């Protein structure tokens, strides 16, 4: 396990300068604002004195590098400034929204892995009906946009059958209601990726089952069950974990759309509303937080793949 730890620390050390570059790029987003921020946020018709007062109160009239230094200094301490519209600290807004997005993505991940792996394994082992269903539905399910599916689910299960709420989020303090409020968004987000993971597992499984060591283990007298579930499945996991890592990144992006559709107060909703309201500090903070999540997902994926694949360890 020690080489894995060393690898993880190495990746972490590489991630820091990358986040720094992303943070810097995020800060300079503000410099792309046409004209001055005051008129951008208050509108061109606002009184010049009002605009000036807005800029001064936020320190936006200082030289760019001074602003950058101050912003960076605060950012490393977790202070991402305050919203131009609500005047609340950005970090606080993001922290309040993060659990929603993480719940959504986490549950979707559970569905994807929980259904995709067994389905793909079954398809590889049973070339008959299950395989054909997976194959036939795959092209369609992968192409179906999550927002279309989301609207369809709302119409069917929320409006017509009234099984689940159409919109809204209940916090984790009431677990049953929390789960209830997330069923439809999670389904909409996870459906396509579940099928694509099943396809991946299927082809990995077919490859592994044709491997010499599977035959050797059977020839040595191990029962089929243990060869399949202990050895074959285990050897499928390394490529599958990499796929799941990519899918998790896709889930974060998909959450932006799905949160909007289901009116969930997560990071994606914060992102979209701050964009429409020109709330630059909030946009910056959200981008930065998403970047941290992406880096974390990549790190965890790499480490998990290394743990699962002895050959990749201690390189």
């Amino acid at each position, binding site marked *: 396990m020690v080489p894995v730890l060393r690898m993880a620390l190495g990746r972490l050390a590489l991630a820091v300068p990358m986040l720094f570059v992303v943070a810097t790029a995020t800060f300079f987003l503000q410099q792309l604002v046409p004209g001055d921020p005051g008129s951008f946020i208050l509108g061109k018709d606002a009184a010049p004195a009002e605009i000036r007062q807005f800029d001064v109160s936020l320190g936006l009239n200082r030289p760019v590098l001074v602003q950058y230094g101050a912003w960076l200094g605060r950012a490393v301490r977790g202070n991402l400034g305050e919203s131009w519209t609500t005047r609340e600290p950005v970090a606080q807004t993001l922290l309040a929204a993060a659990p929603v997005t993480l719940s959504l993505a986490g549950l979707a991940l559970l569905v994807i892995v929980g259904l995709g792996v067994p389905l793909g394994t079954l398809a590889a082992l049973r070339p008959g009906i299950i395989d054909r269903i997976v194959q036939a539905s795959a092209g369609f399910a992968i192409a179906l*946009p999550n927002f279309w599916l989301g609207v369809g689910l709302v*119409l069917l299960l929320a409006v017509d059958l009234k099984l689940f709420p159409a919109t809204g989020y209940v916090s984790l303090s009431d677990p049953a209601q929390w789960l209830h409020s997330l069923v439809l968004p999670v389904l909409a987000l996870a459906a396509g990726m579940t099928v694509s993971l099943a396809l991946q597992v299927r082809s990995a499984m077919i490859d592994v089952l044709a491997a010499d060591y599977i035959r050797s283990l059977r020839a040595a*007298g191990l029962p089929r069950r243990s060869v399949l579930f202990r050895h074959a499945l285990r050897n499928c996991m390394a490529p599958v974990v990499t796929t799941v890592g990519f899918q998790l990144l896709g889930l974060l992006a998909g959450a932006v759309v799905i949160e909007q559709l289901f009116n969930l107060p997560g990071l994606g909703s914060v992102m979209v509303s701050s964009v429409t309201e020109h709330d630059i500090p909030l946009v910056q903070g959200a981008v930065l937080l998403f970047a941290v999540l992406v880096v974390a997902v990549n790190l965890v994926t790499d480490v998990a793949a290394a743990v699962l694949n002895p*050959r990749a360890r201690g390189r």
Partner: protein
Amino acid sequence: MAQAGRLPATRAWLRALLHSPVSAVSLLWLLAVVVVSVFAPLLAPYSPVQDNLTALFQGPSLHHLLGTDELGRDVLSRLMFGGGTLLWGAAEATGVALLLGVPAGLLAGYSGGKPDRLLSWLADLSFAVPAFVVVVALAVIYPQNVVILMGALGVIAAGGVLRFTRNLTRAVRDELYVDAARVDGLTRRQILVGHVLPVISPPLVVQAFTGMSVGVIVLASLSFLGLGTNPETPNWGQLIYDASQQVTTDPWLMVPSGAVLVLTVMALNFLGSSVRDLAPGTRPGVRVRRPRRTGPGRWLPPAESAAPDESAQVPVEPSAESLLRVRDLVVAFPAPGEGRLQAVVDRVSFDLPAGQTLGLVGESGCGKTMSVLAIQGLIPAPGVIASGSVRFDGTELISASSRSVAAVRGTRIGYISQDPMTALDPSFTIGSQLREVLRRHTRAGRRVVRERSLDLLREVGIADPAATARLYPHQISGGMAQRVAIAIALSGQPDLLIADEPTTALDVTVQAEILDLLRDLKERRTMALLLVTHDLGVVADACDSVAVMYAGQIVEQGGAEDVLSNSRHPYTLGLLSSMPAATGTRARLAAIRGAVPAPRDWPVSCRFAPRCPLAADVCRVGPVALAQAGPGRLSRCVRLAELPELTAEQVLA
């Protein structure tokens, strides 16, 4: 030059692409979407944005084929206008990603060193960027500016293209034709454009299709969020958003816009995977279509084949004492494209008495491995044992249930496969694999199993068993791995050990060690050994008797010394003369030319005739039976009687 030579291949490839109905339909659909949206002003029956408050929410009718929306706008017209912008935006992002990523990737992969490190760092950086979120963020400055938003997406995606191109380039950089081009004095640019790019372009085309499909989804999502919209020509994502706002009033509106979007993404994905399957050199995404279980009844022998040859029933040794008795074993696979089964092992019979060693000899592709897998009930699908009998210690295995065959594996019959480096599970340590098998066979406690596993490793000649047990298969040498594989095969204390080319994949010095080990173990444990090999030297060293296989049939059989010193078949003679140590005292033939043909090309007459230096017209008449060729000897040669003379002539010639 290389480019000129590749053009016809590209054309054939395009033809193949269009030949597949799915990809042809996909291509037609995409073409239709583009053409219709370009000529939409002429083709569309109505304006895409003109309200008509007298015709709200009309279902499909003759006037409005797909109905009207909440403002009375014609749905069909809106769809006709809305496809082009979507594809155009996706194409822009894909184009930017390829234009930036491919040249940078070529440079990084080809030159290595500093440019590689810098560019790879940039690629890594792009992986830290949440692409969709950044595009959404840019909408704060450039609202509704699809050109800038999709361009930015392309820039971020270029990192992935760079990494991909770099890895492809690295893989071909040291190929011979690239070296040759370098020696010819071509410039780096000429080499990259003329020699590297053509080779790596098929996977890049696949990437481009994937990129297009992702681009379409991203732009549709942006439009659904209201961030990448164009009020003049609303794209399909926007239409889905508009429809979703009316879904309780008129659910129909969701259908046309959703359908065209899904069809477009499906078309792009299908095209991508067709290109991948067709691309030369890349492993096609093989769809293994496994046929339903094929019973023995469906095996059709080649029409002209001989009646079961009685002589084959003549056992080499009295069968009463035989531990393993194989009779008329036929293993068959479905012939590609035909309904019938093709035999790859054709009526093979042999005996192996307890404690003895039988060599099964022949080139690759003769059916040796399939024969020994059949004995263990391990024929891979879609192959089947079409007929025959395998009796092991008096029990018939062919007709036995798979459960009772499984009970024989490991406990009565041990198996060592060809390549030790792939025969061990790479994800588990050597100790844990060995212990797992031991637990299965001994049902003893943890400590006993551990002790026994170390004893076994010691028995197969591993110096430091405890340390070796903690290693993973990739951490040991081939010879060590083969010893471990032998230890695993021995853990159920089998009476028969089947070793399939146990030394082929090893270094020459290690080969002798492994062979010695097998001989020792056989003596000490009084096992029978079935040794598959293409090396007659191994037979001379280790075997009591030998069966020589060619093209699925046994062609010569007898005592090992007998067959080696006085062979009665041209194929065996050919194998003998290709041995480096063969001495001049034996009758010699020129080393056999060519290779074993594929099963479907096996002749009905003597299967060796096309390669046999002694073949005459009589050899091409009909099937040849195994015939008695002396006491305990069998040979499948029409010219058996003339053979001594013929070989003498060959030696003189």
